[in-house]
């Protein structure tokens, strides 16, 4: 595998869409955008064969910056649109970018069913622990006790572990990384995109503007530095006791296995249907 140079991103960005982009200064989405584009270029995909689909929220604005077919859909439903696109044209590489609220609150049902069906899609879930675009309300991944504009006295619900959820639901590939671990992120994305079946990459990304400010976590620099402290690579994570795991999270590949995709099993139905019809 020959490495592409970082500057390849400029070949993939949409220059008729004016930069700078809409996100706040320091937002991790920009880092993810670069990482995603590098991974696509690295994989040698044809721009014409890639479709980027997103929902609503800060992450929803990501596809517009990439010079591929891009579809910015409704809140929580990006995976359903992607399902339609993929089934309509199975040869396309369909990548879905969602936020944590998008993917696990309003779109939680679609997420688990997409994983169960094992559609050949890549789902990138940008987890910033909050609803950033609408002002910092709590999301299903907001930690217990954290502050949000709708949890002024501290959040009273436990949170989802997105990666564990999608592993259980049957995704072929699940990995977690952060925008701080950007070289690892490039790798995880490359693997997920190349994977046949439903690939999930959970990307922790700081929202210093809303989540960080309300919880006094400092600027995105401090938040990214905290990722450095909290993130533990999978091989080490397995050796940690539960006390040591407190306040930390694992990064790396959580699941990677082969399962037939929906399209493959559906071809079985197609064959049987055609055989039965031929018999009359």
């Amino acid at each position: 595998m020959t490495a592409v140079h970082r500057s390849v991103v400029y070949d993939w960005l949409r220059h008729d869409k004016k930069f700078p982009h809409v996100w706040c200064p320091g937002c991790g989405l920009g880092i993810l955008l670069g990482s995603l584009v590098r991974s696509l270029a690295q994989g040698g995909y044809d721009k014409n064969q890639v479709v980027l689909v997103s929902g609503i929220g800060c992450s929803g604005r990501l596809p517009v910056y990439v010079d591929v077919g891009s579809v910015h859909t409704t809140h929580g439903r990006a995976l359903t649109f992607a399902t339609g696109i993929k089934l309509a044209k199975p040869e396309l590489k369909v990548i879905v970018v969602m936020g944590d609220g998008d993917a696990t609150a309003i779109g939680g049902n679609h997420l688990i069913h997409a994983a169960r069906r094992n559609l050949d899609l890549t789902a990138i879930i940008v987890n910033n622990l909050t609803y950033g675009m609408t002002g910092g309300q709590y999301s299903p991944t907001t930690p217990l006790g954290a502050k949000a504009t709708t949890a002024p006295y501290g959040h009273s619900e436990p949170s989802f572990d997105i990666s564990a959820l999608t592993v259980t639901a049957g995704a072929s590939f699940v990995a977690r990384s952060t925008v701080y671990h950007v070289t690892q992120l490039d790798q995880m994305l490359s693997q997920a995109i190349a994977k046949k079946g439903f690939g999930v990459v959970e990307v922790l990304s700081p929202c210093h503007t809303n989540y960080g400010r309300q919880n006094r976590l400092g600027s995105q620099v401090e938040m990214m530095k905290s990722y450095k402290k909290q993130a533990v690579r999978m091989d080490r994570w397995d050796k940690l006791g539960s006390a040591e795991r407190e306040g930390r999270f694992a990064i790396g590949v959580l699941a990677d296995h082969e399962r037939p995709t929906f399209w493959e099993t559906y071809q079985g139905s197609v064959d049987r249907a055609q055989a039965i019809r031929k018999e009359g």
Partner: protein
Amino acid sequence: MIANKATTKRGKPQTKHSFYPAWCKRCGNCVAFCPVGILISDEWGYPRQVDKERCTGCGLCEMLCPDFAITVGYEKPGAVDLAHPAAAKDSPEVKQEKSDAAKAASNISPERLAPVPREEK
């Protein structure tokens, strides 16, 4: 492979940073995460390279820049960067420059410079 590239005193290829102030939002990622600490914020919060010689060309600043406002390339042989003459390892001038810039930058928070866009979903 890198024969046509300028080299540093230690024989490594000489890197060249390009900054695009038009895209830069002055978030400070590049300055904060440069492993060798050769990027500083100027008085407006824009990054600037102070010690070209020590740049390893790792590209982390480029990858961690959310705004695609930095590229790290290689100096062409013989090119002279007039704005940033090669500086010795944190020479007194560099130290002074860093502390001046830090002072200036501390007065201006990035958030104040670029209002946070807010919209309803």
